């Protein structure tokens, strides 16, 4: 199922995030969103998730406009990893991950054995099985982030929107999460990233959000150049190659 932005104009607090932006994330594609702090990456992602209203245009999930879909139907198709959840969850890690099954829940009371099994798989995939019975608010930042990703995996949505999926994660877990996300079959994935290395390794398409509200979309190979990135981040960059892999380092 594809996720499509149609002539989207988004602004927040008087600042234009994007104007008349159109693009489509096809199943099997992985898009990276790059931009400076405050460029509106999270706002755009929230708009794509139907959590923030655009000034104009619409977002389509499959064939339907998401604003016209019941919330529950949308949540069965589209999963979101938020950067900041702002909740006060008192339960265990397992309870938290199980919430990912909420959109699919059929029972009136509690969750089915199948839901529990899916949550267990997601916990195992994020190496959280040993922490499953711990209260969520006792976890470290990185462990919490992995719990959020596990919850998203448990949701089994066709379209995935991730806001900085690698925040707080150590190198091993960064690699693990990226490998897991690129191993998902037939999913339309869009993620906000700051690490250009992962953008280069894992994203086939990019969306660059420039500070002035301009946006550029296209294949990653075309957009990931020093010229584009220097304009994007408004700083000088140095390009080096390490064993054939391009790296961009902040210049002085």
């Amino acid at each position: 199922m594809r996720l499509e932005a149609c002539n989207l104009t988004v602004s927040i607090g008087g600042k234009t995030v994007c104007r008349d932006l159109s693009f489509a994330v096809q199943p099997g594609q992985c898009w990276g969103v790059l931009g400076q702090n405050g460029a509106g990456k999270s706002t755009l992602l929230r708009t794509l998730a139907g959590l923030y209203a655009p000034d104009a245009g619409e977002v389509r999930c499959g064939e339907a406009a998401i604003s016209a879909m019941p919330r529950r139907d949308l949540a069965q198709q589209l999963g979101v990893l938020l950067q900041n959840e702002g909740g006060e969850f008192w339960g265990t890690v397992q309870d938290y991950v199980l919430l990912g099954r909420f959109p699919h829940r059929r029972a009136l009371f509690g969750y089915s054995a199948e839901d529990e099994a899916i949550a267990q798989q997601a916990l195992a995939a994020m190496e959280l099985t040993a922490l499953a019975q711990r209260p969520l608010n006792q976890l470290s930042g990185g462990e919490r982030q992995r719990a959020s990703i596990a919850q998203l995996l448990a949701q089994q949505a066709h379209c995935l929107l991730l806001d900085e999926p690698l925040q707080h994660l150590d190198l091993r877990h960064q690699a693990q999460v990226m490998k897991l996300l690129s191993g998902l079959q037939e999913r339309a994935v869009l993620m906000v990233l700051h690490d250009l290395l992962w953008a280069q390794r894992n994203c086939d398409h990019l969306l660059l959000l420039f500070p002035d509200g301009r946006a550029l979309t296209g294949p990653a190979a075309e957009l990931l150049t020093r010229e584009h990135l220097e304009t994007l981040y408004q700083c000088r960059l140095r390009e080096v190659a390490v064993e054939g892999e391009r790296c961009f380092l902040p210049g002085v």
Partner: protein
Amino acid sequence: MNPRWLFLSLLFAAALSVGGALVSGALPLALGDVWQGLLGQGEAVQVVRELRLPRVLAAFACGGLLSLAGVLLQSLLRNPLADPYILGVSGGAAVGALAAMLLGAGLLAEQGTSLGGALLAILVVFGLGFRHGERNLYRLLLTGVVLSAGCGALVSLLLTLAQAEQVKGMLFWLMGDLSQPQGLGAAWLVLFAVSVAATLAAGGLDVLAGGRDKAAALGLAVGRWQAALYFAAALLTVAALQLGGSIGFVGLLVPHAIRLLGVTAHRWLIPCAVLLGGSFLVLADMLARTLWSPLQLPVGIFTALLGVPVLLWLLGRRA
């Protein structure tokens, strides 16, 4: 703690507290006398059926209502300090009740004005707090706190204006007192209906506790849920206020006590909180009417005196 065991223990505790409260009083009765009295036989029929049973039922319902309101408001406001009175409902009711007492109006008028005051407060807070959609819970919380402060000032004014002999009745209302419960049948109906509805909606309440955007992303119609929670909590609080005035501490303490015992999923939290709140208030009220018998004390004193050490102990144990 295993939630099933906690639920069963609390069920047992509820039976125990109700039995204990029926037995004890100014006229101590044997368990057999109470049983006979409940069946309409023996000498204790009047004491048991007309005095103690209504009061015990009122105490239990009141405790259950307040605890459930606490659970719902803590979920709505995502604030662990939320209690049934945080949104100004009790402030409005207090101004209404005390104004009627000052004017020397009868009990019926007092019930009417306190109900009117509570409903007015509910509408003001909802009207202002939800005015710009459900986006900002701080607005709702702040509106409630500001309204409560205003009502507090009016209550002080009414207390100052009152005659010396009226003040005692007013203080009893403010501290919570179960000696003149009103609307017992309606209160039990509200308690039963909202408990069942909230338990069935427990999955949604769990999701809502994870944050507004998260809940929306998981398929919850957040705005509608927030409005429903607000009105359900207000309804519970109004029913409790009619039964026993503003009894403090139950709505804050009971949900946290259950959570500190390790039960956080709403499908267990809700029934456990209702049972614990009911038993707790039955116990507190039993102490209030027997400890200095025949003198009867406001039950609100005992909810705090019993509740504070228990909660401090639970908090300390966790740390």
